[in-house]
């Protein structure tokens, strides 16, 4: 199902992940967040931006543990918990945050 961003149609797969990762920009992220019922706050952007940086280097989203540790280091210890991440992304930081960041869905037994 495609999503509509600023008058442009962008393809997503049946689960709402971008078909073409390079089609991502901040407006796309906002629309994707909207379909998830999320309002993008600064806190959300911090996570989404970190995921994109990590993906660029490693071609995969970070393990939840790596993410919480990095967030804790960068944004303060109280934010370096999976509880904090789940508050931001209730369907799970790995899957929901990846979707909004325009990254592929992590697969396997996760």
């Amino acid at each position, binding site marked *: 199902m495609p999503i509509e961003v600023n008058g442009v149609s962008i393809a997503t797969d049946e*689960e709402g992940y971008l078909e073409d990762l390079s089609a991502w920009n901040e407006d796309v992220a906002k629309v994707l967040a909207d379909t998830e019922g999320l309002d993008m706050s600064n806190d959300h952007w911090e996570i989404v931006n970190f995921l994109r940086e990590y993906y660029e280097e*490693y071609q995969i989203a970070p393990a*939840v543990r*790596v993410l919480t540790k990095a967030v804790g280091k960068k944004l303060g210890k109280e934010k370096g918990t999976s509880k904090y991440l*789940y508050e931001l992304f209730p369907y799970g930081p*790995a899957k929901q945050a990846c979707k909004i960041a325009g990254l*592929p869905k992590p697969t*396997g*037994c*996760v």
Partner: protein
Amino acid sequence: MADFETPELKEYSVIPALERDTMKGTQPFIAKPDHQASLGFPGELVDNWKDVALDKMGDLLSRYRSFQVYLDSCVKCGACTDKCHYFLGTSDPKNMPVARQDLLRSVYRRYFTFAGKWFPKLVGARDMDKEVLDEWYSYFHQCSQCRRCSVFCPYGIDTAEISMAAREIMDAVGVGQKYCNEIIGKVFKVGNNLGLPEKALKDTLLDLEEEILDDTGVPVKLPLDVKGADILLVTPSADFFAEPHIDGLIGYAKVFHEAGVSWTLSSHASEAGNFGMFIGSYENMQNIAVRIREAALDLGVKRLVHGECGHAWRVAYSFWNTLAGPFDFLDQNYPIPQHICEFTWDLIQQDKLKFDKSENDHMTLTFHDSCNVARATRMGDKPGGQFDIPRNVIKAVCNNYVDMEESTIKEATFCCGGGGGLLTDDLMEVRVKGALPRMEALNDVVEEHGVTNMAAICAICKSQFTKVLPYYKMPMDMIVSVHQLVSEAIILTGADDGSDEQETSSESED
């Protein structure tokens, strides 16, 4: 959440009144042509699909004697009808094991038996048509191949094997399941189900080493691709990624460290899981299994140890020898393969590990037997070792342990609801409803005995429970890895005195 109702938890399990077709049409996403291609399956439904399907069924009948015996021997006694967690959770009579088998058996009778060829109506034989195929796709993806029904079948008919055959036939005609087939493709391309490239794996392991050092002051290593190491650990890639899996991985590393053995992980075999079994494809299962043999030979290890993964342990324990054997190049003085629970229990018996059990005193544990471990394998050298050894390990590191109701554990264990290739978001309704019997048994010990946490030794179970527990109003982090408990309690030689150990993220219920 989703557009279905979570079943109500009752005080005791009730056999539901039948609700015909309530799960009709519920099905996972169909694999795309490129997911199919790397597994050697046609990209989409082939034109002569009916002929291809029947040829494939004939092929499977000639290859697996068991398959034909299962199709021929059912006497419709009904012993299996109320044994399936998906039936108990959905009330759909087609989720009764015998009805699920009959979806395929009816076609088998039509084309492969004398009576069915000549008097189809008399023997419940059906033509293979698109409607039947669609029904297969739906209901053979509402079976987690857990084999609980086969325990209660007087003939030992194994619905899992029939469901695997149905999936293999569907793959052969071009109708594969996206979740499984995309994942198998990733194993061939990247080396694991997750699609975790070597560089990310390496840095994740370094990160974990740093974490253990910070927590304990001990330089516990998680080595990768070390040639000449004694032990190769193969584990599900979820152990490198998800919670609480990763805490289990830390536990294995601490045990190896204290044992003083040399060990390594492999980037080539960075996956113990084998989804080839779920889709019933011998060839794909073999291609995945062989990667572990190749890694073992390449690294020159003497032993193979398995991390906490249910179906991987089944493939290794029951099928490895014919799939990827002989393993005559390994040290024959140790079990081949060996489970991490066996490894740890052996050390505990030799008094080589020291624990501070009070580290786990904030929890009261119960143990979920994972179906593939419970009903398809063994641990140790005594019958029932697969039940006793994980429990022995837990009791050696925790003071508070309670079993769930007897008819829901050990060989009668209920599936988590997400096994057999169903652990995907597009099957959330099936997963949540299928978890009902386990949730009822868990809720029972929570209320009766103050159980706060449930431990498991399967990556699928752990991820499934993390997801479905909240549907049943229980905290997602109730589920823990067995070696996470070991990790909390183990006393590392040279550790910081009264180290600022991390709390496990469990939430007390009482």
